[in-house]
């Protein structure tokens, strides 16, 4: 399941969704607001999404991940709005039969999210603010990737 939300991300609720007696390995990635960026002290971060399109892209990532690995349960949740230091901006959880698959699938999902989902962030410093430089989006998940 995918979710784009303005509310705090509840990692325990996400882990609860991973319950499944057939899978031995769960990997959860949490991305969160760091207190520094390029040597400057960050005070908070604004996340802005192209919501409709971001949901389409998040769902594509889930679909692609499931196509590449034997995923039994998966959740991708991305936060929007203003986040304080230490708050979770993105959570990705994957449950697979074996740990290697779960690590690879989770890593693929966060790497692809950063390359494809139309979300922007603006860092607020004590003395100003700046949009994070960002990367040119890739138009889709890399269908030809090897596992």
């Amino acid at each position: 399941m995918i979710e784009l939300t303005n509310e705090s991300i509840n990692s325990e609720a996400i882990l609860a969704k991973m319950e499944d007696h057939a899978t031995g390995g769960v990997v959860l990635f949490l991305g969160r607001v760091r207190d520094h960026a390029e040597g400057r002290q960050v005070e908070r971060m604004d996340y802005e999404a192209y919501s409709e399109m971001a949901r389409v892209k998040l769902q594509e990532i889930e679909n692609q991940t499931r196509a590449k690995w034997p995923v039994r349960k998966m959740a991708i949740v991305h936060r929007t709005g203003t986040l304080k230091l230490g708050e979770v901006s993105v959570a990705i959880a994957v449950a697979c039969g074996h740990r290697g698959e779960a690590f690879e699938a989770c890593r693929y999902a966060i790497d692809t999210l950063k390359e494809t989902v139309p979300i922007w962030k603006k860092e607020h410093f004590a003395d100003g603010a700046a949009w994070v430089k960002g990367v040119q989006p890739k138009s889709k998940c890399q269908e030809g990737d090897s596992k």
Partner: protein
Amino acid sequence: MLTITLRFFGQLRELTNTEETPIQVKEGTRIEDLIWLVGERFPVTKEHLKIVSFSIDNEYAAKDAVLREGNVVGLLPPISGG
């Protein structure tokens, strides 16, 4: 003429002070033609347009994609989610 909707995000939204706006374009207009039209209407965007990506109806669009009536075109600065 076709009516399409432009949507601005991130720095472009701030610079244009616009979230979305309709724009009239001729039949057969491509994204690459639209870039020029946007630059004319929002001169503040001009220096950014070379690194902007475009979407049509929630999918990334190539520069040679042809616009259709009712398309929603997103002007997407380099992304930084996660």
